[in-house]
Every structure is written in structure tokens, then in C-alpha cells.
């Protein structure tokens, strides 16, 4: 009996050590939902190829985003984060899928639900969280807060609903002007989609054939107003009228990626702008001051969580195709949790910005100047 036990343990250890990464499927093809098209001949392919590396990377990034937002929720309830805080959990497939379809050398601008994009565009969890808690180690040195985070080729983080859309087209104009074959992804929500300046932008982007991918993240609610109550036409992918559009399953990272690739190709070939509507969902309310259940039911939220969660969808796909093991994904979860904990620790212990910094960054590339304080005797210093 002892021998059998010994043998068994030996065999199991042999089995474990022999199970290398070569056992996993290196890549697999998945069916993705067909996109509704507007003034487009062809949509994205109905199948997407996912490699193991890609899958693990998307999983890690989405999970990092998810846990980061949930940690922000926690810190907000502890009053360590204050002011506005608009969380992105539920919409991870959008940010990750979009980034997978473009390059870091491309440009992106969004509205205030921006933490996820700050991450995909090169920000670290540490500096994002420290910005939320208003510390000097924050990505904007504590001076911007939740809605005003910037990285290279990422223009925020914009607080005024809809204002980022003309800005994005302006970035696209610069891309075309400078001739570097870059494009600009310009995001807005279903609430912003009714803004006049967006239609002004559609017009100019189309006239001048700007390389601009307009993306409407339709999470069904503009703050507390459902799309049916806000828009005479909820076919946001058609609202560009003369701009070709497609409606995409925003909960499926592969669907988003393939659509983005198609859109990017369209722009880079000089055809002008294109519009994508991503159908997605936010688990949290509009912001931390909105419980999110007065205008929708908990059942609805729960249904989306159980049937359409973007992270679960990817996880199921990978596991059922033997592209990763449960342990491996659990290990990623543990690493992510640690990263978030470390970041939160930093964000809560890093000191606030020094008072000397109060008046800095008014002008760029200017000699130091004096700024009036709260009274005539207080003269504060400002450097560029």
C-alpha cells in the first residue's frame, strides 16, 4: 500500500512537471456576433482568431481595470477619494478591445469615465489611483483628479459632455496634416450623442476626410435617463448620417477588436471618419453619488453580470479551448490583486501636492510669474 502511495505521488509530481505550456492551445478561432452596418458594404469578419498570449494579456488588463475600479469604489466610500468618480466596471471589453485594434502611436480621447483608457494608454494603476486620491504621485500630480488624466497620445479625461468630440477631430486633423498615418479614436457616451457639437464635428470630419474613429459607448443610460427617453433615434451607429457606421457587441473584447481593426483600416486608407456604436453596460451608477438602481432594476444589472460579463466571457472561451488553466488565471488574479493593493497603499500614503505647486502650470514655456493670492498681500509664485 505504501509503495502504491509513493508511486502515486511520484506519478502525480511527474505529471505536474511534465505539463508545460506546450500543452495549451496556442490559438483558437471564435465566432463573434455580426455587426449591424450603416452605409458600409462589409462588416468585420464573423470569426476572430485569439492567440494564447493575446488572451492572457486581455484577461490581465481587463481584470486589472475591474479590480482598480472596485478599489476606487471602496476608497470613495471611505472618503479617501472625493468629488466626481465615474467607474468603468462592466465596460472593460471596450477599452481593451479598442486598444487591441490600434497602436500606441495612434491617439485617443474620451469623456470622464476615463480610468480604463488611462490604463490602456500607458498609465500605471499606481499613478491613476494616486491621482484619484489627489496626491503628488498622481498622473497629473494631483491637480486634475478623476476626470483629467493624460498620457502620451491620450488627451483625457474631459469633464464637459461632448466637448471631447471636436477635440478628437482636431487631433485627427493634426494626424492628417502631419502625415504620419496615425488616427484618432474619439469616444463619447449615449448621453453625449445628442450634443450639437458632435454633429458639427461629423460634418467637418466628413468634409475634410479626417482619420477619426467616432465611438459611442452606449451603456443604455445617460446618467439616470435611459436611451429611449433621451434620443429620438437610438440607432447611434446611424446618427452620423453620411458617415458609415457599425453597431458592435461591446461586451465581447474580440468583437470590439475586430470592429476597431476594420475602422482603423477605413481611416488609414484615407476614406475619412467612421462611427462605431459599442453596446455595453456599466455595473455602477453614473458616478459614485448615484446608486444606479433608481432608474434600472437590480435584476437587470444581475442579468448582465451573469450572462454577458466581458471578463467571464473571455475566461470561459480560454478555458473551454484549453488556452489556459484555471490555476494560471487564478495566478493572474492574485498578481492583479497585489498590484491594486500596492497601488492603493501608495495612493493612500503618498503626500498631497506641496502648496508651492498651487499656482504652477498656468502657462507653458514662460518665465516665472506672480499670481494674486486670496488677498492683495499674498503674492504666489507660478512656474511653467
Amino acid at each position: 500500500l505504501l509503495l502504491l502511495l509513493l508511486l502515486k505521488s511520484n506519478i502525480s509530481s511527474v505529471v505536474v512537471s511534465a505539463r508545460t505550456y506546450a500543452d495549451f492551445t496556442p490559438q483558437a478561432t471564435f465566432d463573434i456576433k455580426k455587426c449591424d452596418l450603416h452605409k458600409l458594404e462589409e462588416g468585420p469578419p464573423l470569426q476572430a482568431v485569439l492567440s494564447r498570449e493575446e488572451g492572457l494579456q486581455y484577461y490581465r488588463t481587463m481584470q486589472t481595470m475591474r479590480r482598480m475600479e472596485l478599489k476606487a469604489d471602496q476608497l470613495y466610500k471611505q472618503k479617501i477619494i472625493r468629488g466626481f468618480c465615474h467607474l468603468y466596471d462592466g465596460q472593460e471589453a471596450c477599452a481593451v478591445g479598442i486598444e487591441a485594434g490600434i497602436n500606441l502611436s495612434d491617439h485617443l480621447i474620451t469623456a470622464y469615465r476615463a480610468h480604463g483608457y488611462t490604463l490602456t494608454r500607458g498609465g500605471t494603476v499606481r499613478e491613476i489611483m494616486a491621482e484619484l486620491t489627489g496626491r503628488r504621485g498622481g498622473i497629473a500630480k494631483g491637480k486634475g483628479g478623476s476626470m483629467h488624466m493624460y498620457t502620451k497620445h491620450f488627451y483625457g479625461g474631459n469633464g464637459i459632455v461632448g466637448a471631447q468630440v471636436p477635440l478628437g477631430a482636431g487631433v485627427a486633423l493634426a494626424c492628417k496634416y502631419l502625415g504620419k498615418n496615425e488616427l484618432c479614436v474619439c469616444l463619447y457616451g449615449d448621453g453625449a450623442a445628442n450634443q450639437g457639437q458632435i454633429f458639427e464635428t461629423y460634418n467637418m470630419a466628413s468634409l475634410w476626410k479626417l482619420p477619426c474613429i467616432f465611438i459611442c459607448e452606449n451603456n443604455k443610460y445617460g446618467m439616470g435617463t435611459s436611451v429611449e427617453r433621451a434620443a429620438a433615434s437610438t440607432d447611434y451607429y446611424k446618427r452620423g448620417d453620411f458617415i458609415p457606421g457599425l453597431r458592435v457587441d461591446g461586451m465581447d473584447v474580440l468583437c470590439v477588436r475586430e470592429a476597431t481593426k476594420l475602422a482603423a483600416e477605413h481611416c488609414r486608407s484615407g476614406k475619412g471618419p467612421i462611427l462605431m456604436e459599442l453596446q455595453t453596460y456599466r455595473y455602477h451608477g453614473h458616478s459614485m453619488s448615484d446608486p444606479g438602481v433608481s432608474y434600472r432594476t437590480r435584476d437587470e444589472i444581475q442579468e448582465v453580470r451573469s450572462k454577458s460579463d466581458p471578463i467571464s466571457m473571455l475566461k470561459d472561451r480560454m478555458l473551454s479551448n484549453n488556452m489556459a488553466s484555471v490555476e494560471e488565471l487564478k495566478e493572474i488574479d492574485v498578481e492583479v490583486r497585489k498590484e491594486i493593493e500596492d497601488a492603493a497603499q501608495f495612493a493612500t500614503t503618498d503626500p498631497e501636492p506641496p502648496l508651492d505647486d498651487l499656482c504652477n502650470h498656468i502657462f507653458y514655456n514662460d518665465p516665472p510669474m506672480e499670481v494674486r493670492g486670496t488677498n492683495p498681500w499674498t503674492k504666489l509664485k507660478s512656474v511653467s
Partner: protein
Amino acid sequence: MASLRCFLRSGKNAVTAVLRREFHGTPPAAVQYIGVTVRDALNQAMDEELERDERVFLLGEEVAQYDGAYKVSRGLWKKYGDKRIIDTPITEMGFAGIAVGAAMAGLRPICEFMTFNFSMQAIDQVINSAAKTYYMSAGLQSVPIVFRGPNGSSAGVAAQHSQCFAAWYGHCPGLKVVSPWSAEDARGLLKSAIRDDNPVVFLENELMYGVPFEMSEEVQSKDFLIPIGKAKIERQGNHITLVSHSRMISLCLDAAAVLAKEGIECEVINMRTIRPLDAEAIETSIMKTNHLVTVEGGWPQFGIGAEILARIMEGPAFNYLDAPAVRVTGVDIPMPYAKNLEDNSIPQIKDIIFSVKKTLNV
């Protein structure tokens, strides 16, 4: 001669005069002055800056094929083409936002508002997207943009087209606000504004566009710049300081000429820049003259004069005032249309003279 110059300066007639001067008592060097209108000065400044830096471009309504609603951009589209001189649809909020975005991504746009009245439609982009961004991003994202166009009252264009926005834009940190008077001002300040890496609101004046000014060779040079934030003393005087900007400088100089005949010597300070305000220049002058009258075309409440007076109160020059400082402003009403009403809605030379005499108690 003086009266001819006064006549020309107040913009009632557009005559290009060519003058040549010689300095007596010094080695005979004929310093060549040419007469240049404010319009041409702006045009040349833009032309030179477009040539100097490929990233500079102009956009706005009618700026390209129409040569500019007020012909300020005449000839530029022909020279630089569609890529750099862009006609926009009548969508201020949209194209101002596009201009700001282009500036964020590395270009140096000049965004023209046909008049600053229309900038109200786009004011969110000027303030929230342009002015505040460098601060909100703690220095990560700069916005090198110029918003320019005619500001203030014109002639007979009535209430919706006559507002002065100097105080509105002058209120906001993160913006530089400039208000040229002469052709030299227009040239030097526009070049500085275009070369500045920050958002600059450049307030022109439609009635000044056709007014010619003498321009020396030095001013004509391609790198002639006027620093933003420094006022200029247009006329020296000992008895009272007049501070003004834009077209009202012409009226101040005309009033000063009349007062000089009565032995009252006015020091006329041309602000040139609204924000940052050159308070020091004003204070230095008051310490000499002991009296202050500000003159502006805009409304009185919370206006340019109000700010200047507040600063003087709070600063070292207060103790040098022999009388309360006062403001001469536009009348606190929307601009009427009928000529007689319009004429009485903005400061006239007699109003400046009256206020000076009241302040001096003569």
C-alpha cells in the same frame, strides 16, 4: 498735420499715406517709414508666421476663398493652399474644438472668429478645453493656439454684434488676452501670440482695420515681436494718466491733444495686453501724475477699468492719488442701432475730456 493724423487714427477714412522723415543734427540717414494699415499689418504677420513655421495654420469662416470676411487673410489661401488656410462651416463650437484638438496634437492653429460675439458659442472650448488644460494636466498637455477676430463695437451692427469680450476673457487664468491698437501693435503682438505656446485671445477692432500707421524698418523686420504683458506709453504727460486699449487709444490721444491746448498734459498708456495686466506701468505713471482715468469701449460692470481701479487701490500707487480714480466706459445698455443712439452709447472725446477735468477739478 496733427489733425490729419487724428482724423486718420479714429478710423473715419482709410487713406494710405507714405511719409519720409529725416533726422536733423545727426548724420543724414533717411529712416524709411511706410504707412501700413492695421489690416495689412495683421495680414503680413500671419503670412510671415505661416512661412516661418509649417505647423501654423489658419481656420475660420470665409478665411480662405473669400479672402477673409474683413479681408484680413487676403491672399493667404492663394499662397498657402487648402491645407493651411481652411474655410469652415458656420459651426463655431465645432471648429473651435477642432482647433484646440489640433493644438493639443502638435499643430499651431490660428482660429478666427468672424467677430468675438460668435465666440460665445464656442466659449466652452476656449475656456475649458484650451485655457485650463495645461493646469489640469500638471504640465503634460500644452495648447499653443491663437483665437483672433474683431471685438467690441463696430458701426451700426446693433446689439448682438457689438459686445466687448475683453473683460470676459481677461477674467480667466490660463489665457493670455491681447488687445492691439496700432499697426505696430497688431504686427508685433500677433507674431508673439502665434509664437506663444499658450492659448492667446487676440482682440482686434473692425473700425481700426483700415487705419494706416507709420511703421519703421525695425517694426517691419520679420522677427519684430512685442512682448505680451507689457504696456506702452503712447504719449508722455505730467498731469493725469489715461489708460486704455484698442480703438479707444485713438480717442484718448485726440482728447489729449485738445487738453494740451488748455495746458493739461495727459500721459496715455496703451495697455496692449489685457491679461496679464501691466499694473506696474500704470502704477509708475500714477506716481508721476497722481490722477487716473481709464477708458474702455466695454460695459462698466466688472470690466477692464474696474479691475485696474481695484488693483491701484490695492497697490502702492493708491497713496499717490490726489483724487479718486474713475472709469470712462460704454453705456450700460445693449448697443442700439440708430446712429445718434449708437454714438451716445460709447465714449466720445468729449466724455474723456469731461472726466479728466472733473478728476483734476478744473
